[in-house]
């Protein structure tokens, strides 16, 4: 193998490695950009409604036994979750949430400038039977976003609707 050829092979290999690295970076950058753009495009109200509803139906809250506290406030409860297990709501947690100060719930939800309305309804498509309705939402709120989640409550299907508005 002559010197010239060895040089060309070196350059070729180096170029290929360089291009692979460059393309990997570009792919990663494009995906990150798309993700950031998607989040940025989603309205803050929608983002909050979706995120809070996710916490409610997928987690039990933090601390996990927050519903056993005498008085729930933003110093002893960091996150409110209603699930006994994924998509299965716990009536004890719902009852405690129902008797908790609404302003405290608003604060723990992270909805300082917004109001919310949480409803849990059985037979929501045929003859709606509202089991819980907890709200701080002002009736004159100009912009409202609704996140609906499908769950089980007492072994029956239910719809959890979280409306967030300002």
């Amino acid at each position, binding site marked *: 193998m002559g010197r010239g050829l060895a040089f060309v092979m070196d*350059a070729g290999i180096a170029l290929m490695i360089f291009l692979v690295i460059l393309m990997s970076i570009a792919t990663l950058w*494009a995906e990150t*950009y798309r993700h950031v753009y998607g989040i940025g495009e989603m309205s803050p109200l929608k983002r909050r409604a979706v995120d809070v509803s*996710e916490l409610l139906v997928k987690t039990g809250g933090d601390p996990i036994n927050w519903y056993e506290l005498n008085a729930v406030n933003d110093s002893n409860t960091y996150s409110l979750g209603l699930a006994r297990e994924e998509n299965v709501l716990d009536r004890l947690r719902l009852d405690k949430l129902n008797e908790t100060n609404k302003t405290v719930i608003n604060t723990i939800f992270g909805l300082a400038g917004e109001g919310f309305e949480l409803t849990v309804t059985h037979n929501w498509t045929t003859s709606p039977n509202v089991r819980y309705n907890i709200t701080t939402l002002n009736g004159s709120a100009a912009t409202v976003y609704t996140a*609906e*989640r499908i769950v089980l409550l007492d072994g029956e*299907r239910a719809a959890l609707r979280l409306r967030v508005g300002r």
Partner: protein
Amino acid sequence: MRGIVATLDAIVALVIAVFVIGATMQLLSKPPARPDDYLYKYSMDVLTVATKDGSFAQGFDGDWTRLAGLADSMSSNVCYNLTVTNATGYQAYNRERDCGPHENAVVGRRVVSDRTRVYTAELEAWYK
């Protein structure tokens, strides 16, 4: 040989320049819409509840009405295509509300079992 070295340099520079220009053009254009995060969570809710309330189990016993009822209770502005398929491609169940073009559809998947075989429940959903 000097001439060839100069040409290689030029080719490498050209490739990089084309690549950088292409990447810049792509970044300046609006990226394609990202599938809706909320709709995906909603689809997964349906599959999770169907698993936990025994809709799939009842379906494998021959009665799919419970699963059909759950799928139909999805919000009216959501179109869907629900399939339950095993590894050989056999489709045990299919139900759809085909009410518009499949734009930005999301697909939720969950593995379910009839106690002997494993199936994939797939719920494709998109806005009307």
